[in-house]
């Protein structure tokens, strides 16, 4: 799973897809996840990082992470070909 190369992410949580012209806003956790994705981390590695940092149950995080990554896919912010 990989973030599309040309996606622009600002520190304030503003995300711009220059291919579609669509823009999105993220909260701080969403930003962290997107940044980790940009670094090329797998879903498992992202989950581990977030669990280390935040007081959250693994099951709850997994559910939210699944939904969030699903949304990114729906908005075509994730390269489908590279998904594993």
């Amino acid at each position, binding site marked *: 799973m990989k973030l599309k190369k*040309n996606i*622009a992410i600002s520190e304030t949580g503003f995300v*711009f897809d*220059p*291919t*579609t*012209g669509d823009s999105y806003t993220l909260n701080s956790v969403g930003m962290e996840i997107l940044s980790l994705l940009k670094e090329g981390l797998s879903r498992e590695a992202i989950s581990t990082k977030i669990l280390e940092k935040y007081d959250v149950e693994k099951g709850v995080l997994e559910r939210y992470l699944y939904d969030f990554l699903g949304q990114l896919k729906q908005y075509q912010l994730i390269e489908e070909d590279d998904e594993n």
Partner: protein
Amino acid sequence: MMKTKITVAVSGLNNVDSPGPGIPVIRGIRESKFFESRIVGLVYENLEPGAYMHDHVDKSYKVPYPSEGRGILMERIRDIHAKESIHVLIPNFDSELYVFIKAASELKRLGIHTFLPTLQQFEERHKSNLPEFGEKYHVKVPKSRAITHIKELKELGEDYEYPMVIKGKFYDASIAYSFEQAQIYFNKIAFKWGLPIIVQEYIRGTEVNVVALGDGRGNTIGAVPMKKQYITDKGKAWSGITLDDPKMLELTHHIIGQTQWRGGMELELIRTDNKELYLIEINPRLPAWVYLAVGAGQNLPEALIKLALGYPVEPFTTYSVGILFIRYSYDMICSLEDFKSLTIRGEL
């Protein structure tokens, strides 16, 4: 650098809620580092806002509608030319292009330069000729057919399913979800713009557009892709953003290369969920949102003038991505004297 002084005549000054491209074209010309231009506005109506925008338009003249005949229009242009010594004329309405393309040689003899598509280019990109255009130049287009009678809606057969798009020959398009709706739109658009009416397959996806300029020898001088972000009830962009889409640019280069397109153009495209691009329309002139291209680094109106006057023009290779335009309306306070002058004397 000393700027070259020229006089440019521009039409399409109806800067209303469905604006003509005149004022945005003029804004590009005004920002030219190469030309210092006197702008002569050509207006058809007494209340075209551009005529009253004295920062943009130095002098305006009323001209007869092209439908009144080429001879009458040219007579008026000759009168204006005698007073103003026009170097370049940029017509901005689809409905006047045919007349000015036909008159291009005559205009040139008078010393008035244009940079318009050839008659063949103009004709073959007509909405009613889109299927043939797609086949000839290997471009994906929706199925479409020109009809002249409402009963033909019933005879379309299985090739056309609802929803379908009902379009006027110059302007207007509505999506019809049933035969009854299609009939209503047929009558409405035919009443306003005449026949034929174009029936077009509805392609699901996102509308995206490109403004471009061809040099008439197959080279793309500039091209900027855009997505409308806010659309008015008339289907006009009220806001748009420049895109980074190599496929849209590739298609633009292909079309300009294949057709040897001469002049400004707007490509209206649909990008499907499978990322395929369908050409739904070519407007044979710069669009009203052309100033976005200027803002993104491609002054296409200036480049068009250079081409018209025979200056060498290097193609633009970059533009800024993620630049937005947001349109706004603005109430000008105008004097009765101005209105009277345009109404009675036909000039302002």
